[in-house]
């Protein structure tokens, strides 16, 4: 049979973000496939070397668009580790609330995003409408809907506005009451199950080979491999939550885990609002202008659990006013590049967008 070359993206409705998969197909089966990244390459790692430690706070959220707060968190964690800054207790809890809200919004987007590849657009519309309410809460807390620049070295930029707790709780209760509807619409929908059950498998060996983290890893290994549990940051060790796991990873399992994690996020935020102490939210990092602030020399790596997996920064300082080098580990780098090359072949054309979607691939963080 003749081999045809097909492009999935960059301009394609089935593609999330701006990247391209080159697929060589025979009939309906993909024989070879390669990801062509770089369409969102902005040279962040270079740009950060040209800006001061404080200036970079405005730059970093833009590395990963759907979930920018993880960037701010790892960047702040790295600086705090290098400069030995002690973060006020309240700031830790606020950070946790922000990170979990961001995880909720990213999960809602990804969970509704299943509407694209499968054609169930209603799920997408509903999920986006719910996600919009999170963005409104973010706007009230931080002043911006998407890029918050809220978590800074030494704490958070400012305290939570008065009365926001009730708004968050209202939203969470409402979302919790609506989540079963999503379960009926997506997870229990026979036509969706026909597409996802026993399809797009991710065995545990492949997870270890590629270095897949996050939901992909937990759905295959059955272990609680979550950085929030394994190496806790913020105050995750003080709240009580479960990490959903599974031992058989198909597209359906990964979606189900995403769905269950939303409940856990709601749970964490509720506990955090309950247990949050008062006090200061930001420690002073420097005397005088923060723009001339020097961070002690050192090399440190920090990672947090983003909605797609381990998200980390490797920061090198030579004691100057600007970072010497920052390397970004995008959570979807392994499955996005090596995974597409090695494990997408063998699937059908129909499954390619679904493969991309349920593996949790976010192109801006691959390209940087």
């Amino acid at each position, binding site marked *: 049979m003749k081999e045809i070359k097909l492009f999935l993206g960059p301009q*394609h409705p089935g593609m999330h973000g701006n990247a391209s998969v080159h697929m060589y197909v025979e009939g*309906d089966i993909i024989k070879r496939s390669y990801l062509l990244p770089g369409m969102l390459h902005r040279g962040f790692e270079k740009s950060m070397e040209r800006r001061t430690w404080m200036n970079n706070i405005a730059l970093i959220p833009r590395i990963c668009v759907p979930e920018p707060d993880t960037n701010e968190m790892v960047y702040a964690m790295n600086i705090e580790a290098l400069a030995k800054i002690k973060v006020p207790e309240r700031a830790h809890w606020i950070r946790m609330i922000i990170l979990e809200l961001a995880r909720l919004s990213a999960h809602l987007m990804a969970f509704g995003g299943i509407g694209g590849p499968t054609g169930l657009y*209603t799920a997408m*519309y509903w999920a986006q*409408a719910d996600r919009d309410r999170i963005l409104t809460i973010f706007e009230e807390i931080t002043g911006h809907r998407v890029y918050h620049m809220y978590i800074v070295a030494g704490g958070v930029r400012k305290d939570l506005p008065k009365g926001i707790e009730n708004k968050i709780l209202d939203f969470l209760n409402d979302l919790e009451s609506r989540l079963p509807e999503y379960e009926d619409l997506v997870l229990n929908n026979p036509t969706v199950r*026909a*597409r996802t059950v026993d399809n797009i498998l991710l065995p545990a060996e492949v997870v270890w080979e590629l270095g897949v983290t996050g939901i992909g890893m937990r759905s295959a290994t059955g272990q609680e491999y979550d950085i929030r549990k394994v190496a806790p940051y913020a105050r995750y060790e003080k709240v009580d939550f479960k990490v959903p796991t599974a031992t058989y990873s198909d597209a359906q399992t990964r979606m189900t885990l995403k769905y269950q994690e939303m409940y856990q996020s709601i749970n964490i935020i509720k506990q955090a609002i309950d247990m949050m102490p008062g006090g200061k939210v930001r420690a002073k990092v420097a005397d005088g202008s923060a723009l001339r602030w020097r961070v002690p020399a050192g090399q440190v790596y920090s990672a947090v659990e983003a909605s797609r997996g381990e998200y980390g920064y490797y920061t090198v300082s030579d004691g100057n006013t600007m970072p010497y080098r920052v390397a970004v580990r995008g959570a979807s780098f392994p499955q996005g590049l090596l995974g597409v090359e090695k494990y997408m072949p063998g699937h059908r054309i129909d499954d390619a*967008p679904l493969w991309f979607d349920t593996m949790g691939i976010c192109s801006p963080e691959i390209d940087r």
Partner: protein
Amino acid sequence: MITGILTGFGILLFAFVWQTSLDGINRKIVGRFQKRIGPKWYQQFRDIFKALSKTGVTHGWVFDFGVMMALGGIMATVMFLPVVGYSAFPGMDNFFIFVYLLAVGMLGMAMSSVGSGNPLAGIGVMRALTQMVGYEVPFMIVILGIIFGHNTSSLSELAAIQQASGIMTWNLVKMPIGTVVAYISLLGMLGKKPFETFIAPAEIASGPMVEYGGKQLGMLMIMHEFATFIEVTLFVTLFLGGATTLFGFIAKYFVVYILASLISNALARFKIDQVIKFYYKVPITLAIVQALMVVFLGWGV
């Protein structure tokens, strides 16, 4: 003769105006289903005329000719339809005429989009033809049962027979299994989910439509409206007893079409192999059961 032609054009005009408005209304209803406001009811007219006002791109004469053939074939088919007792060619509304005339339009479309040379269009056409094989067989078995039971294949006669004593003589009541099968086939014909496989925007970027823009796209949209009109009218005539008044026709048409679209918006799309497996498993079994009931037990006659 003159009245016949005038009636034909009248039916064409009615078909276009009604189906296009309904499409707009449908978009509004779907919008409400998805918790938003939705466009104005005449949005579909705007879209079609906008597309016609743009320049087109050609990919060779097969591409252009195929579009004309598709639109012409479908328009010819519409003119043969009996609507509310009006018919351009009385006595020539045999069911099989529609089966064959409809194929002319579809083939024109297939020819044209393959002529564009885009591999996605080729895949789309292949899927469309495969899907056609899927839904035509159960549909035909049910229709043959009806024709056998009523001893006629003329649409207007079939409608007249069903109108004999109200709702009890509708094929919907007399052959409920067949109606369900035909409705599932109708979903496939209309390209509603879960049988949307051949356009599948997220997989093959709208399949056969991938290379059309401007005028050709406008013509194809008109063709799509006509094709929808034919398919839904066939269903209404064959199973809901046709209609004697315009209002009755519109009401039945509305219910059939909107129901299909609501079903479509709560489901995901099948893969093409799943489509065929589904059609050859469930509807074909039901269709054979229905045919056996009609032929051997005489139920539903």
